[in-house]
């Protein structure tokens, strides 16, 4: 076990835990009250091995290396790939230096991003949008033309829109780790690099649709859902069906009685809880296919968590309370 202190909050974690995981443990604790000290992530995905370390949004400063070697680390480190040592002290949101560096990273991620949120299907549940809202500048300082790519259809279900990509490599790791074949990879170098299937080969695998769920931006989108609706107009419901390939536990996004899209259920950090298969995701678009359990709980500070069942319920309570108060006064 190792004791680590992040922004003044201490926790005991097993050896081999990363700083990021430790920070998430602190925040997830029921008794925790305070600000969210978990660093934001764009490329790290706890369910994918060797993910993380690329986007640099989760950088933190280690002010004390460990009990044995108290020297601070000279450079900011990627918290998702740095394991804790006993007695380590880390600063995240309490360090202006870290916040400044993170702001820089967000700016770098945005300079070649098209900012086409008004027509992007991911808008409302986009991690880059949230990150830009929290750490970005209101105005861009980049006044050159942005890099663009042609849109590619990867098979009948998935659209690759490289222009929006921020190179998190999650989709490559999905293709590597949960599907049998490695179809995707990185081509070219520097800011000309792109994720590609090289010969625009259709990804043909039962679990390939999960690349859509792991994509933090709108680079990989569901072709069966494209331009159907803004995500915040749809209602997420936990649902399941008997599926022979996957667990069948999904979230369906409904508008009225129509199922507009099916995704994996997401946790607090926006990560899929169970991978789901392509049949569930793309082919079961009828409410009769599903056993609806309850409205999905969305525990995320983003547009997507507005307007939801629980919030509405809360809102109604508030309104009735106010009405009672008003009535009382009269």
């Amino acid at each position: 076990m190792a004791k680590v202190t992040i922004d003044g909050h201490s926790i005991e974690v097993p050896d081999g835990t990363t700083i990021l995981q430790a920070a998430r443990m602190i925040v997830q604790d029921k008794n925790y009250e305070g600000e969210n000290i978990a660093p934001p992530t764009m490329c790290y995905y706890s369910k994918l091995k060797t993910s993380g370390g690329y986007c640099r949004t989760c950088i933190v400063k280690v002010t004390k290396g460990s009990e044995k070697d108290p020297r601070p680390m000279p450079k900011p480190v990627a918290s998702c790939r740095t394991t804790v040592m006993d007695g380590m002290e880390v600063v995240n949101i309490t360090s202006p230096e870290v916040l400044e560096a993170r702001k820089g990273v967000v700016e770098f991620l945005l300079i070649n991003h098209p900012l086409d949120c008004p027509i992007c299907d991911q808008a409302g549940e986009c991690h880059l949008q949230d990150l830009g809202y929290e750490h970005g500048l209101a105005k861009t300082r980049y006044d050159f033309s942005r890099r663009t790519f042609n849109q590619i259809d990867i098979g009948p279900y998935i659209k690759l829109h490289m222009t929006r990509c921020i190179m998190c490599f999650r989709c490559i790791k999905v293709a590597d780790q949960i599907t049998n074949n490695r179809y995707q990879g990185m081509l070219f170098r520097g800011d000309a690099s792109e994720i590609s299937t090289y010969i625009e080969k259709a990804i043909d695998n039962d679990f390939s649709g999960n690349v859509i769920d792991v994509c933090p931006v709108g680079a990989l989108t569901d072709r069966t859902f494209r331009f159907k609706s803004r995500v915040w107009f749809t209602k997420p419901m936990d649902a399941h069906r008997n599926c022979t390939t996957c667990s069948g536990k999904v979230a369906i996004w409904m508008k009225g009685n129509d199922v507009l899209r099916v995704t994996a259920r997401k946790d607090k950090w926006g990560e899929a809880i169970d991978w789901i298969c392509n049949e569930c995701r793309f082919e079961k678009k009828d409410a009769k296919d599903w056993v609806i359990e309850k409205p999905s709980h969305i525990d995320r500070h983003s547009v997507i968590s507005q307007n939801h069942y629980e919030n509405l319920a809360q809102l109604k309570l508030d309104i009735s309370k106010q009405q009672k108060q008003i009535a009382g006064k009269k």
Partner: protein
Amino acid sequence: MGKKLLIHNDNVPGIATLEVYRQNGGYASVEKALKTMTPADVVEEVKKSGLRGRGGAGFPTGMKWSFLAKPEGVERYLVCNADESEPGTFKDRYLMEKIPHALIEGMITSSYALGAKTSYIYIRGEYFYVARILEQAIEEAYAAGLLGKNILGTNFSHDCYVQVGGGAYICGEETALLESLEGKRGNPRIKPPFPAIAGLYGCPTVVNNVETIAAVCPIINMGGDEYAKIGIGRSTGTKLISASGHINKPGVYEIELGLPVEEFIYSEEYCGGIINGRKLKAVVAGGSSVPILPAELILKNDKGEARLMSYESLSEGGFATGTMLGSGGFIVYDETSSIVKNLYTFARFYHHESCGQCSPCREGTGWMEKILHRIVEGHGKPSDVDLLWDIQRKIEGNTICPLGDAAAWPVASAIRHFRHEFEEYINHPERIKDVKHYYSVNQLAGA
């Protein structure tokens, strides 16, 4: 004359062949090490010598070797980094091309010290003809029983291979080199684990520069203590310097560390002064990535003491007034050169060579290049200099590998020491039109 240990017999005819090389005292260190010393002795001698990595970072080699993990039953590897791609650096090419056996000899001795049964020389693709020279030298060594099974009748066996890379700057970074050597895309790995624990094929690996490995031979021959007497302070031994730019005698020079910079530039033995008797303007002391220094700061440090060619003296004053010895790519600029144009060239290089893995470097290098291009073309904006400064500050230290720092330092130092030149470009674009690239804006302002 300074002492020469590495290229003292580079002009002997036929030194590239094993026969002539052995007549000139070659492979003595292999015989001495294998027959009279234990591997631990060799490491101890290298530690005593105070030899520091010649590739750029200057990390003590003996210490690096002693960090190598030695688990039972796991292969260990020695990898020679011959991916010399830093603009301004060409010393390794000279050494490998002229005296290939010096490297092979160092590889055998070092591998013996590390207990490595296999070693690789990873050479950049552009040096294809050098790879052929090395392969021939290796063949000769195999025929003479210096490589292969039971070298010189001892029970040490060793194989050495040359691997040609694709010619990417990033593959000079040790973990990217290992990835490339494994046949993958040359992207730097995230450290830890360091190569000394999990390197090539997940096995403990030491990656050393060509010159570092070649320097092991004289250390074993003369003894670590004797070697440590050469040089100054913690900068021991000799160093190959690739001198280029506006000097009378560009080329590769072997110097004793501790030589005054002024002597190196102006003496007849080395660079022979500035071309056409012009004045010195600036120097990049260790390859394109180290900070550029103006003439007054490279000859004397901020305390007024003469600057010496050594790891410590060159970095005196930190990055505010100092620089680094780096890989020894010594580029000299005379008064006619334009620092802004030069910086644009460097920025273009780093943009082209960024691997695209982590965001600050991928996006930042391209952004800096675009801004510099605009300035050089006469369309700069007054806010551009501050913007450049801010971008480089946000790249430095926030990337996976040191390429981000390497791209940021030249920009930072050029703005720090030559800000007026940027402002000249931005405020008076009419003065830079139709001008050949080597004329400085200062001269034009006077004209």
